Every structure is written in C-alpha cells, then in structure tokens.
C-alpha cells in the first residue's frame, strides 16, 4: 500500500509502514469462531458469554444459538433472566435472528415463570421473521395475566397483526379494562387492523 505524504510540492515518501500484515488474532472473531472454539462445551460458552465482552461475547451467544438443543436454550434463558444487560440484549437480538430456534422452544420462552423474560420473549417475537409469528404471540397472550407482558405483546403485534388477532385484542381490552395504556394501544392496534 502506498502512503500519502504532503504530495503537492514533494514526491511521495516511501512506504515505511509495516501495518499491512493481517492480524491473525482479530481475523476470526468476526463471525462464528475458529474450529478450536467450536468444540467448546455449553458450560464454557456460558462462561465466555458472561465474562467476555464485545465480539467474543457475541460469538459465544451465536454458538449457543447454533447448538440450539435443550441445554443450550436453557443457558440462553438463564441469560435472559440475568441482570447482565449487554448479554440480555445480545440474546434478544440474536434469538430474533433464529426463528426456527424460537419455534422449537416457543413454550419455554413465552411461558417462562419470570415475567421479565416473557416481556423479552415478546421483544424477540416482534423482530422474528416467520409466517407463524402472529399465531405464536396470540397463543402466548391467551393465558397471560401480566399487564406489561400483554403491553409488550400488543407492541409485538403492531407491525404484523391481521384480522386473526382482533378477538384476542378485544379479550385483552376486557381483561385489563381499568388500564388506560392497554386500552390506548389495543384501540390503536384495532384501528390499524381495520386499515389493513
């Protein structure tokens, strides 16, 4: 590579740079990881996701998504329930990119005993691209008694709700008749469905 020196009056200076060599340590952190890391156990990935930062953290969570079995998903749920905000946000973001993984573990995600996790589940579903997302949300809503989970579900339905959602939205309105915000967002959503 050439270097740029004050070029107008003077000839270009010779390149003295040694920075053209690829830095091997950075290379593979980008997407997924090296073969050596692929063999890491779920426990190790959990530790890595919790203790590291930046792209290493991202890579560990991605690998758990790739493994995708019961244990890996349990690990992801534990992270969703944790107080580690960057980790939680990463899990939300990356699960949203894995619709089939969400589908495979849908009930454990949407019926988690912790209502914060159920809110995050709705945040995830609001970003997932899958033909059945509306149905998944409605199914989760059916039994839901927490007002903020329902609010998150209405938000998740915002972009995708069809006529199929109408009855469920009216049920929510009735279930939380005393909650101004639920009435507001349910009415807003019903208007949108009518326009669609």
């Amino acid at each position: 590579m050439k270097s740029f020196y004050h070029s107008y009056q003077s000839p270009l200076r010779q390149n003295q740079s040694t920075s053209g060599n690829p830095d091997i340590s950075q290379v593979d952190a980008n997407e997924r990881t090296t073969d050596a890391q692929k063999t890491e156990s779920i426990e190790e990935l959990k530790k890595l996701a919790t203790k590291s930062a930046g792209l290493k953290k991202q890579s560990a969570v991605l690998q758990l998504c790739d493994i995708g079995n019961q244990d890996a998903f349990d690990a992801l749920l534990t992270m969703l329930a944790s107080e580690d905000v960057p980790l939680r946000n990463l899990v939300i973001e990356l699960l949203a990119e894995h619709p089939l993984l969400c589908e495979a573990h849908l009930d454990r995600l949407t019926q988690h005993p912790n209502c914060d996790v159920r809110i995050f589940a709705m945040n995830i579903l609001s970003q997932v691209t899958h033909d059945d997302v509306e149905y998944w949300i409605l199914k989760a809503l059916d039994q839901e008694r927490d007002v903020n989970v329902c609010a998150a579900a209405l938000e998740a339905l915002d972009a995708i709700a069809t006529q199929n959602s109408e009855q469920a939205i009216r049920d929510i309105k009735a279930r939380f008749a005393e909650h101004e915000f639920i009435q507001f967002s349910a009415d807003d959503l019903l208007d949108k469905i009518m326009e669609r």
Partner: protein
Amino acid sequence: MSNNILVIDDASTVRLFYRSALSSINCAVAEAYNGAEALELLYKAEQQFNLILLDINMPQMDGYEFLKIYRDSELYQAPVIMISTEARENDAIRAYEAGANLYLVKPVTTEILVTVASLLTNNRVQS
C-alpha cells in the same frame, strides 16, 4: 415558552401514548428508540430539553447506560423520569442511585404523567 420533552422507549406504542398524554400541556415531544439514538439526537439537537422520560430495558443501550453517559456529559441539563416495568423496591433504589429524578412503574396513566411532567418542568396544567 413551550417545553421540550424527550421520550426514550423502544415501544412505538408507548412513545405514542406519552405523546398523546402530554398533548394537554404546552410541550413539544421528541422521540428516541433507545439510549444510543437519544444521545445522537441530543448531540444533534438545536433545542434544549426540559424533561426526559426514560425506559430501562431497551436494545443496544438501556436506560441505565444512557443515564450514566448523559449525566457525565456536557449534554446534561434536563431532569430524568425513569419509567419501567420493574416494580421491585430495588429497582427504584437503583434508578435513584443512577441519578433519576423520579422513578415510575409501568403502565403509567395520563394523569400521573401530566402531573409529574408539569411539576418537573414548572409548567401549569391547562384545563
């Protein structure tokens, strides 16, 4: 003079609700999707903000991180109301320790929003 209020929440319905609720007092509402977008908006903004309504759980940059950066920066000027779903006693304490002027638990009503917004911006509620 009208007040400028910045609403930071990832849920568009929540932002719309706050906007609609605050329409009864004399104010202009700006919206941001998360803490990072709010910081960008504040850096670019020509107007000064009198009040910030801040959600806690948001993608990329949550309310706590935003508040920490905001309070340590030259941008800091407006009081901050944190509004979140987290209703445990600890959550309120944590919010105050982080520098929030007020902590409210979701969902909030128009009445409460208008009252606290008026108090914190020294604005009279118009009847």
